[in-house]
């Protein structure tokens, strides 16, 4: 007896051999879901941070021609710069405006016959409280057809989408944890059945339920830790490969997000987390089963 609690040969149980594979698959899925959620959360954080304290004015092309449009632009800039809440108002030149449309319109965005609205990027002073509705009305009065966008509508929809993605990721995490726990519960039940006689003997010579449960929970912990490390390793390899494959693809700035130490720590915690869940599931199953005995 190399170890003091090797009374039950759980290591040789055929019924529990699948546990590391199930845990590996669950940790793999959980890691991808968690990485996705963190990626979206980081991107949303970046968008929110980038758009906080900014407004955008759209000036529609004046049918009277480019000179009239330039005049409208100047009028709007004057009005905006006169506002004490505005720190800076900068008009994007036509080339820059067309460049923003390029991802949607392709090379056609640069054709001069396509009318492109002119944009004014507004930076507000720190802590400024702007009455957007009043400012928009004054702008429309000075320049008919001018629109003031505080990005709230766009950001709101994006935040909603991000929230949904995070909820789905959380559900995947919970399902993975439940599936892993169930696998351990079935393995523990099989172990209890296989070792029924030895458990009965231990019981009759005065072993506490916890003495027996410790053997199962230790085995479950080690199996889940092994599976967790394998699943996590596969997930990290997948994430790195995806980063390499899709790093250059522009998708709402997701490709710009980089994982920091906190993100990697959260991912790394999945393996010991799975092991702890497995340990708790095994302990609960064994204690519950033994409690039915005298």
């Amino acid at each position: 007896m190399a170890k003091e609690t090797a009374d039950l040969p759980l290591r040789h149980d055929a019924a529990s051999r699948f546990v590391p594979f199930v845990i590996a698959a669950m940790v793999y899925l959980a890691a991808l879901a968690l990485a996705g959620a963190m990626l979206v959360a980081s991107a949303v954080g970046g968008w929110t941070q980038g758009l906080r304290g900014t407004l955008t004015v759209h000036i529609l092309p004046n049918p009277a021609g480019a000179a009239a449009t330039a005049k409208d632009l100047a009028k709007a800039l004057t009005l905006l710069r006169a506002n004490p809440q505005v720190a800076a108002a900068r008009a994007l030149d036509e080339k820059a405006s067309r460049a923003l449309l390029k991802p949607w319109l392709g090379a056609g965005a640069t054709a001069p016959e396509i009318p492109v609205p002119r944009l004014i990027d507004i930076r507000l002073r720190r802590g400024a409280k702007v009455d957007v509705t009043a400012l928009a009305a004054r702008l429309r009065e000075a320049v008919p057809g001018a629109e003031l966008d505080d990005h709230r509508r766009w950001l709101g929809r994006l935040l909603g989408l991000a929230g949904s993605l995070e909820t789905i990721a959380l559900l995947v995490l919970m399902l993975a944890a439940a599936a892993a726990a169930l696998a351990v519960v079935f393995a523990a039940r099989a172990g209890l059945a296989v070792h029924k006689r030895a458990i009965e003997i231990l019981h009759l010579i005065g072993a506490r339920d916890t003495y027996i449960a410790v053997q199962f929970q230790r085995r479950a912990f080690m199996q889940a830790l092994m599976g967790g490390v394998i699943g996590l390793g596969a997930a990290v390899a997948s994430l790195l490969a995806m980063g390499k494959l899709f790093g250059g693809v522009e998708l709402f700035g997701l490709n710009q997000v980089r994982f920091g130490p906190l993100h990697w720590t959260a991912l790394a915690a999945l393996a010991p987390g799975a092991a702890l869940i497995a340990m708790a599931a095994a302990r609960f199953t064994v204690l519950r089963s033994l409690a039915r005995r005298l």
Partner: protein
Amino acid sequence: MSVVATPECKSHMVTVMESPRTTEPPGPPGPPAPADQAGAAVVRFEHVGMRYGAGPEILRDVSFTLPPRSFHFLTGPSGAGKSSLLKLLYLDHLPSHGRIEVFGRDIASTPRGELPAIRRRIGVVFQDFRLIDHLSALENVALALIVAGARFEQVREHVAEMLRWVGLAEQIHAKPATLSGGEQQRVAIARAVIGKPNLLLADEPTGSVDDAVAMRILYLFEELNKMGTTVLVATHNDKLVSSFAHPRLDLQAGETSLLPPA
């Protein structure tokens, strides 16, 4: 820790360990722990009945008392319920009616979590030995101490000594499947007595051994009894019973009667 010498084999000395009653390892040598509260019976059965499931009553109205340091034989024909009575004593079953007290505790009202501590004060030699197949003889015997919190390395020598005394010096590392019935029985006996229990229950402990070994086993039980262990031995062996001057608890048709030594 005490030293026991058998009348037959003075040269064979065996160390019987004090059974750890907490999760701590065995303590230093000292006198045996008191078997129970001062003066109280070790075992008291009051109008006890027992049945398996919805089956017929195996025991109908059993009442008896085992005083501290007593030695009784449990006799009776096959099927009289000796093994069932022992099952009640080693807390494997609850009675269908009546009251059982062990070490002054009413078993029916004792919280389940306290039963293992009571079981550790009871050494049992099962009729079917109940050894754990994948463990060696040494490990099987050590288990009785390990479940109480001892570490294997601490008890290895004591256990080996006990196995040598029961004549299994060469089979210390043998698995039960490679041992004969008699050898398995001796391992079971060693496991039952290694912790110097307050109550020793033996179900046909000499059924698979020759007369000489049977006598040695009974002498060991007597030595334990002299050290304070209450002993109850269920046996068919009339010759053995008549060799020792101990009273008999005779079980007939589900009821017991106390008989003088044979």
